[in-house]
């Protein structure tokens, strides 16, 4: 390419310059691990010996012989269905509740964000164990409403309990909703008030559409994270009891670093990747219909 042609290319593709940091980072740091894991998925690789080519064997095995694959996928689906809607709804409601300026609200915003901070702490497993044990404070709390003490990690409740751990850290989602709510032009609300539009209508006709792009973002990220979750299972339940919390991400970790079946774990990862990708594309396609962008939807 001659120099002038190169310049012309750059002038027409200015955006290229801006994403350059990311592109370099991708080529240098991300591409090799990313595609390497795809290669490993076609091999028998235990981390100690060089990978040996297997072709499709790992994938065939996963779909035909692996007894954990389907149950684990179903557990993960249930987890996703449990966590994502509740977390989003709660975050949005609390954000609306806190979306006003006053000293008190500043205080509460911080309080509601606390779990997101504590959630990454070394103490979180210990806290959870103490709170949810037979004689813990959670049982004492529901006892005051006359509800019988629960065994929180029984096969039927365990998944719900670790979902709570995730939902409890809705702080980041809430912060983004707050940031989005703030971006809604005030005159829209003023005009609605002048016309005497009822509150609920304002919410559905103004608020929701105006933050739809962030709802979309939060939805997608909550999905992606919930599908890959494994920390709570690792820290609290170990996947049990009766594999009721054997999340897909935990199964992967187990295979990769406890059983040293890295090749197999890579194949499972790429299956999960495909599932999330398809879901993402579907959401992206439908999002045209329900998300509103001020830039006129030109992307």
């Amino acid at each position, binding site marked *: 390419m001659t120099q002038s042609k190169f310049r012309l290319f750059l002038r027409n593709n200015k955006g290229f310059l801006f*994403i350059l940091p990311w592109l370099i980072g991708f080529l240098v740091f991300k591409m090799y691990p990313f595609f390497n894991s795809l290669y490993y998925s076609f091999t028998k690789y235990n981390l100690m010996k060089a990978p040996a080519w297997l072709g499709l064997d790992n994938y065939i095995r996963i779909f035909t012989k692996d007894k954990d694959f389907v149950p684990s996928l179903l557990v993960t689906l249930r987890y996703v269905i449990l966590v994502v809607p509740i977390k989003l709804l709660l975050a949005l409601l609390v954000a609306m509740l806190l979306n006003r300026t006053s000293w008190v609200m500043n205080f509460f*915003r911080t309080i509601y964000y606390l779990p*997101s901070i504590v959630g990454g702490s070394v103490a979180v497993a210990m806290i959870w164990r103490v709170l949810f044990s037979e004689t813990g404070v959670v049982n004492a709390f529901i006892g005051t409403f006359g509800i019988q003490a629960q065994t929180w990690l029984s096969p039927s409740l365990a998944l719900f309990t670790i979902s709570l751990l995730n939902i409890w850290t809705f702080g980041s989602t809430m912060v*983004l909703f707050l940031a989005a709510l703030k971006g809604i032009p005030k005159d829209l609300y003023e005009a609605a008030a002048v016309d005497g539009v009822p509150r609920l209508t304002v919410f559905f006709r103004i608020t929701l559409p105006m933050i739809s792009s962030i709802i979309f973002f939060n939805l997608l990220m909550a999905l992606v994270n919930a599908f890959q979750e494994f920390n709570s299972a690792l820290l609290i339940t170990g996947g049990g009891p009766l594999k009721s919390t054997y999340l897909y991400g935990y199964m992967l970790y187990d295979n990769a670093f406890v059983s040293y079946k890295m090749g197999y774990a890579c194949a499972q*990862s790429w299956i999960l990747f495909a599932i999330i990708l398809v879901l993402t594309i579907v959401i992206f396609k439908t999002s045209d219909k329900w998300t509103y962008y001020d830039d006129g939807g030109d*992307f």
Partner: protein
Amino acid sequence: MTTRQKKHLWTAVHLLICILIGFVMAYPLLWMVGAAFKQNGEIYNNSHIFPRGEWVLTSWRDGWYGVGTLHFDTFIKNSILVVVPNVLFTILSCTLTAYGFARFRFVGKKIFFMLMLSLLMLPNAVIQVPTYILFRDFGWLNSYKPLIVPSLFASSSFLIFMLVQFFRGIPKDLDEAAIIDGCSSMGILVRILVPLCLPAMVSAGLFQFLWTWNDYFHPMLYLNSTNLYTVSLGLRMSLDATTGVQWNNIMAMSTLSILPCVVLFFCLQKHFVEGIAAGGLKG
């Protein structure tokens, strides 16, 4: 009931709901603080905030001085050395990248964008080993480079995507008006998009701060020398599940280590709600 009474009632109910949820949200932290004052054995079986028995006051001092010649101030200093550059670089590089994706058309944009998002979808467990090999070959092990350098290159797909969503919420008419006024592409970013998306920028910085500050796994993998340990490593330094653990010390230092995050959030959170001139500019 008059409208005024109604309003007062509504305020009271509102406050009551806030306090109720707030208590549930804050309880674990309060318990953690309380645990620092409990005797070690009591921590396992007392789920109430206050110690039943004697108050222990030594955990803070003992936790701070920790093991050997390394004290907690070293860990805090190290964490700052990692987190501050990481957060600054991340905001800078992610903002530029997000701007590129949000406002320009260029060859292969959709493919790059999908690729960028794809990076979020592959579980870490399988990327970690090749990444380690890569940093080993760069000769970066046992240094802060693996924890800082990638942040120069917009390594967080989450934040890029997030900023893209917020940038797209700003009408393009504003850009066009600025161009007519003689503003460069960079000028539009700095003078229009960034100020208008301030809450989003603040959130991005806050998230990145929190994740990097709390991150245990990556420092654990890449740092060997104890004098390089960050707070999260220092906290777990004497945590051995097979032997006794001095939980009250760990609870004390845990509380201390999340304090910067809490203070930072408290100081920055007004940006999420208080209006600046933006409201009028927009729409």
